[in-house]
C-alpha cells in the first residue's frame, strides 16, 4: 500500500532539496503550488474514489483561510486558529453533504457549484464586511509555529510540504483500508455496497467532510503564503481549476494532484505575456490532455513503459501473440492464477 506513495514522496523530497536554492519569490510560488496541491489531494479523493464531483473546494479553502485569519487577527495563536479553520471547512463540508448526499452525478455537482457561489458572495459582500473585509479582503498576520516565523517563505514552504505529505499519506492509507474499500465499492454500485452493510449516505457525508477539511488545510497554507486574502482568490474559477488540475494530473494517481496543480500554477508563470488569454491556455491544456491522455499526465507516463514492452513483445512473438489464455474456474488448485 505505502509503496504507492513512493513517487509522491520522492517528488516532495526533490522539492525539499532544491528549495533552498530558489529565491523568495520562487519559493512563494512553490508554497502557492503546494497549498493548492493539498486541496487537490482532497478533491481527488472524492472524485476518483467516491464519484463525487465537487466545484466547491476553493470555497472550503476560503472557509479554512478566512476562519483562521479572522481568529489570528483577534489574537489567536496560529496553530489553534488553523485547527479551528480546518475544522470549520470540514463541518461546512459535512453540512453541505447531508442534503447533497441524496443526489448523484450532475445534480450533486450543481449543488457544490451553488455553494461555492454563496461562499464567495458572502466573503465579498457587504453583509459580513465587518468580519470578512468585503471586496478588499483581509490582511493576514504572519503566523508562528513552534517558534518558527511562517513569514519566512522557506519555513512556510517546508511546513506546507510536510502537510502535503501527511495529507497524501492519510488519503492513501484510508483508500486501502476497510473504509476505503467500502466507498470504492459504493462508487461501483451503491446497491452492492448497501447490500454488504455499508451506510452509503453516511459514507458519502464522511468522505466529503474529510475532503473539505483537507481543502481547509490548503486554504490556511495559502492565506499564509499570500499575506492577504480576498474572495477572488477562492472563486468558482479556482474550484474549476482544481477539478481541471486533478483530471489533467490523473485521477486516482498518487502524483496526479501535484502534477496537475504544477501544470496549472506554472502555466501563468510561463505565459505571463498572455494574461488576457490565460483562460484559453487553460482550456487548451485541459482539452488536449483529455484527448491525448484520458488517464491524465501521470497515467500516460506510467503506462508508457508497459506499452513499449507490449509492442516489443508483439514483435518477438510474431502474429500469434501471447498470453491470451485466461484463467478458468474449472482448473484445479494446482493451476492457481498467478498474481
Amino acid at each position, binding site marked *: 500500500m505505502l509503496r504507492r506513495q513512493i513517487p509522491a514522496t520522492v517528488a516532495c523530497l526533490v522539492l525539499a532539496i532544491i528549495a533552498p536554492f530558489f529565491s523568495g519569490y520562487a519559493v512563494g510560488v512553490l508554497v502557492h503550488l503546494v497549498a493548492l496541491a493539498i486541496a487537490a489531494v482532497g478533491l481527488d479523493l472524492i472524485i476518483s474514489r467516491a464519484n463525487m464531483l465537487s466545484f466547491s473546494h476553493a470555497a472550503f479553502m476560503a472557509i479554512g483561510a478566512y476562519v483562521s485569519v479572522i481568529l489570528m487577527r483577534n489574537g489567536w495563536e496560529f496553530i489553534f486558529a488553523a485547527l479551528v479553520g480546518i475544522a470549520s471547512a470540514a463541518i461546512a463540508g459535512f453540512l453541505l453533504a447531508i442534503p447533497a448526499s441524496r443526489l448523484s452525478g450532475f445534480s450533486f455537482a450543481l449543488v457544490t457549484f451553488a455553494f461555492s457561489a454563496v461562499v464567495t458572495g458572502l466573503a465579498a459582500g457587504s453583509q459580513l464586511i465587518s468580519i470578512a473585509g468585503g471586496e478588499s479582503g483581509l490582511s493576514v498576520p504572519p503566523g508562528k509555529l513552534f517558534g518558527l516565523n511562517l513569514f519566512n517563505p522557506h519555513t512556510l514552504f517546508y511546513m506546507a510540504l510536510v502537510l502535503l505529505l501527511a495529507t497524501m499519506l492519510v488519503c492513501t492509507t484510508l483508500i486501502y483500508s476497510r473504509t476505503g474499500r467500502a466507498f470504492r465499492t459504493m462508487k461501483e454500485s451503491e446497491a452492492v455496497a448497501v447490500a454488504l452493510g455499508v451506510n452509503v449516505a453516511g459514507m458519502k457525508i464522511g468522505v466529503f467532510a474529510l475532503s473539505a477539511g483537507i481543502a481547509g488545510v490548503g486554504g490556511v497554507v495559502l492565506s499564509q503564503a499570500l499575506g492577504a486574502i480576498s474572495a477572488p482568490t477562492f472563486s468558482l474559477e479556482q474550484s474549476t481549476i482544481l477539478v481541471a488540475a486533478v483530471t489533467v494530473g490523473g485521477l486516482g494517481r498518487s502524483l496526479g494532484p501535484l502534477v496537475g496543480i504544477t501544470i496549472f500554477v506554472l502555466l501563468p508563470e510561463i505565459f505571463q505575456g498572455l494574461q488576457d488569454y490565460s483562460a484559453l491556455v487553460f482550456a487548451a491544456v485541459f482539452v488536449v490532455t483529455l484527448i491525448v491522455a484520458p488517464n491524465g499526465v501521470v497515467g500516460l507516463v506510467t503506462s508508457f513503459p508497459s506499452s513499449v514492452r507490449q509492442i516489443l513483445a508483439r514483435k518477438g512473438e510474431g502474429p500469434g501473440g501471447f498470453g491470451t489464455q485466461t484463467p478458468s474456474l474449472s482448473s484445479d488448485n494446482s493451476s*492457481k492464477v498467478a498474481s
Partner: protein
Amino acid sequence: MTGSILDVRQASVHFGGVVAVDEVNLAVGAGSTHAIIGPNGAGKTTLLNAISGLVPLSGGEVLFEGAPLNKLRARQRARLGVVRTFQNPALIDALTVRENIQVGLYTQTKSSSFEEALGLPRALRREREARARADAVLEELRIPVEGSTPVGALPLGLRKAVDIARAWVAKPKLLLLDEPTAGLDESEIGEIESALARVKGEISVVVIAHHLDFVMRLADEVTVLEFGRVIANGPPTEVRSDPAVIAAYIGAADDD
C-alpha cells in the same frame, strides 16, 4: 414452516401499474437451499430485492428468524445476516481478489475510519485478520485464484466466484444468490455448484438460477414464479414433473 429462517408472506411489489411480485409466499428452512426459478420477467430478482430490502414491499411481509424485516433498511438487514450477491458482481477491478473479499467483512471489522486513516495499531491488526479470513474463504470454497490477483484480470466465472466469496466471508445466516450461473459455461457452473455444495447445510441459501440441472442437483426446495405469482413449490423432483411448470418454464425452454 416450523424451523424456517425466512418467511415471505403475501409479498407484493408494484412499480406503478406493473405488478412485479404478486402475493408470493415462501418459506426457507434453516440450513436449506431454496431455489427460485421462472422465465425472464417472472419477478425473481424483484423478490430477492424485496427480501434484501433494496425495493420496498407494496404489500405483505418478510420475516427473518420470526422478526419482521419490512421496516429495516438493506444495510440493517445485511448486519442481521441477510447478505446477497448480484447478477453484476460490481467488484473493484483495481483491487485484488483478497481486497474485494475483505469488503464483505465491512460490518464485522471493529475499527474506526479515523484509526484506519492514521494506520493505528488496532486498525492494522484488524486488517491483517481480515486478510487472513479472506484467504481462508478462498481455500474453503476452493476458488482457484491467488488472493493477490487483480480482479480486473479475471474471467466472468471467477468474478462470480469472488462475488460469492465476498458474501460468504461474513458468514451470513441467509445468503441470497442472484443468478450465480448466468453467462457461465458448464465447467464454470460445475465449480460454482461444488463451492456451494461444500458449504451446504452450514447456512440457508436462496438462489435464483436458469440452469435447471444446477437447481435440481443443489436445491432442497424449489419455488417457480410466473408473472410474479407462485405457480409451483416443493422438492425439485416434484416441481420438475409439475404440468404447470413444464408448460410455463421447461416447455418454454424446450421450445427454444
